[in-house]
């Protein structure tokens, strides 16, 4: 792995998981000792790593997961507003992924099955508390809701792939994954 030329200032990076499993974030942590290099180059804004709740102005935003409900839309839009570069991280963000498997069913079929017809459930009803975000009729990849600058595929993308991608980006190279960093198994 080539050394990363340091940018003139630390880049600000935000991350979040929408309809995802945090597997991409776990894979991010798999860059292991590169984390020490990384913190010399970037600082984190909103992220599960910082517990900052609202995203602020950032250079880079990493989005894991697709868009399955209204809250996802709000968070994604806030990231788009604040991040100069927004990246779809992993299969769910790129394609909808596993959560999108509900797309061949209607939303009412899904919710009724879970909240009304499940064996052992009496007088079940579909939750309707205004605190809860409403689900969309279909799970969408994030590029169908906001403009996305880069796509980093994989379920999850491997640690080395994420490291290569980020170091390219930080060094000012257009990120490009080839061969082993992209292949399936």
């Amino acid at each position, binding site marked *: 792995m080539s050394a990363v030329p340091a940018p003139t200032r630390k880049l600000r990076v935000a991350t979040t998981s929408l309809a995802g499993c945090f597997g991409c974030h776990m894979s991010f942590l798999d860059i292991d000792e590169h984390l020490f290099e990384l913190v010399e180059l970037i600082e984190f804004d909103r992220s599960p790593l910082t517990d900052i709740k609202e995203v602020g102005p950032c250079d880079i935003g990493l989005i894991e997961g697709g868009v399955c409900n209204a809250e996802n839309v709000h968070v994604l839009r806030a990231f788009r507003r604040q991040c100069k570069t927004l990246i779809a991280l992993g299969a769910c963000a790129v394609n909808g992924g596993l959560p999108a498997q509900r797309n061949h069913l209607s939303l009412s079929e899904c919710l009724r099955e879970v909240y009304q017809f499940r064996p052992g459930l009496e007088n079940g009803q579909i939750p309707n508390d205004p605190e809860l975000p409403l689900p*969309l009729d279909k799970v969408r990849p994030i590029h169908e809701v906001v403009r996305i600058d880069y796509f980093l595929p994989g379920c999850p993308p491997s640690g080395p792939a994420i490291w290569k991608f980020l170091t390219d980006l930080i060094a000012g190279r257009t990120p490009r994954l080839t061969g082993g960093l992209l292949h399936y198994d």
Partner: protein
Amino acid sequence: MSALPPSPAAPLEALLRRHGHDPSALLQILIEAQDIDGWLPAPTLTQIAAAIKLPRARVEGVAGFYSFLYDRPVGRYRVLFSDNITDRMLGNRALMDALCRKLWVEPDKVSEDGLVSIATTSCTGLCDQGPALLVNGRAIGQLNHRRINEIAELIRQQRPLEQWPTEYFQIDDNIRRRDALLQLDMLPGAALAAAVARGREGWLAEMQASNLRGRGGAGFATAVKWASARNATEVRKVVVCNADEGEPGTFKDRVLLNTCADLVFEGMTLAAWAVGADSGFLYLRGEYRYLRPQLEAVLARRRAAGLLGKGILGEAGFDFDIAIHLGAGAYVCGEETALLESLEGKRGTPRIRPPFPVTHGYLGRPTVVNNVETLAKTCLIALEGGTAFAATGTAQSAGTKLLSISGDCAAPGIYEYPFGVSIARILEDCGASDTQAVQVGGAAGICLAAYEFQRRIAYEDVPTAGAFMIFDGSRDLFEVARAFVHFFAHESCGFCTPCRVGTALLKGFMDKLNDGHGAKADLADIDWLDRLLKNASHCGLGSAAPNPVIDTLQKFRPAYERRLVSLDFEPAFDLDAALAEARQLTARDDPGAHLQTHEEDGR
């Protein structure tokens, strides 16, 4: 419609025997087998697979590839409206809706009683006399509401096609300008006699002197192709005439086959004489199936006259005959290697080249594949000599070109011009006024704007297979491009991912703009897709698919820009509507239960 009971196996067995249980005849077998029930029931496919000793999946794969083969029931009257942009400009959609309403049937579905099904199909080559349709494979042009009413009545009365008014099936040639080829009045065999008199070498030398280039669009030197096939080591050589005239807006081959089939067949025999081929095929697109009986009659006459068969013109060892093979509604089969696959009874997937057909073509034999017009032109060369032929046209484009002119002009039809004619001159001759754009070479060709009308038809300037579609000031060039993009997405053979997915994505973007969700970001994505299709596709279909978009984005960009609702990004769907089902399920209508589709301004 309930599935028809399986027919008695006898007719199927008879046709399998007639084809000698030959797996390479699979496509022809399927086409004929479909005539039994109007579609291909599963037991029929099973029986065919067993009889010709192919895996059933192979048979099903072929049946599933071609638009005109049906693996589920269709109406006893199967109506397909031609859906080229020129048909649309003449109002085909309104006529189709009218027919659907009158017959109580939805498009793409079969009526409850199994009587009729109505759908669209790619250009049927009747652009000069559209809107057009095919009913059970027979072409009807010049549709209007009166004719649609009559057709609805005939179908309702279940009248057999033979009893329909014959003028319906009258297809006009509409030859408006004749030059060397269309003026030629030749006795069958005259060109062949001249070539045989020169000997094989002498005849090929004339071809070389003529500088004839392929009229199918690519413009490859015909003599070079012939010489390569002649020099190939394998002895059994093949000549194929490509009459799969699928390029939207092209219909010159239909007219040539209708009016001077002798020239075409004689051209094939001339090619056979040059390369030493013993078998020939005319690959006739399924849309022109109605021409087959008269073409078979011409072939029979030529056999009787000693112009086909053993020892042609008394020349020992000059043995050559021609068989007609039908296509079944697949544009990609116009690509020569896809055509060869189709001739061998397979799916029309283009081959990887090299090896080229001239060394490894039909069943691995050296094969010359030429366009209908190219072959007809060789008669002129045989009669008048190569030098005389090369004297007309331009430096790199010898001879004349047939143009199929359609769209906004007073006199659509066939025009033959020497190469080098300007677009402006053609527009004047066909009575076009207020012309905004001309699409030359079909969907895969080039879109010319008014400032380019001084350009010339020639391989060195504007090359073309012959389509020439005219759009006047009232037309929306975005709609034109969108129609062509739909065409390519439908006709992609599905073999390579860049084309299969790329054409579908491009169609998605064009529809997004059309549906009022367009954003500037889409134009950038369209550019990216255009490049991807152009550079990564397996064959010419994929690499030509973005052409209409590339040209119109460059020359008619405002037609796209006026459709943009955002200068940044816009979803293709209504976000708030995507919550409607959840709102209904939860009986919520609070502010949190809604989304603004257009995002409030950010920083």
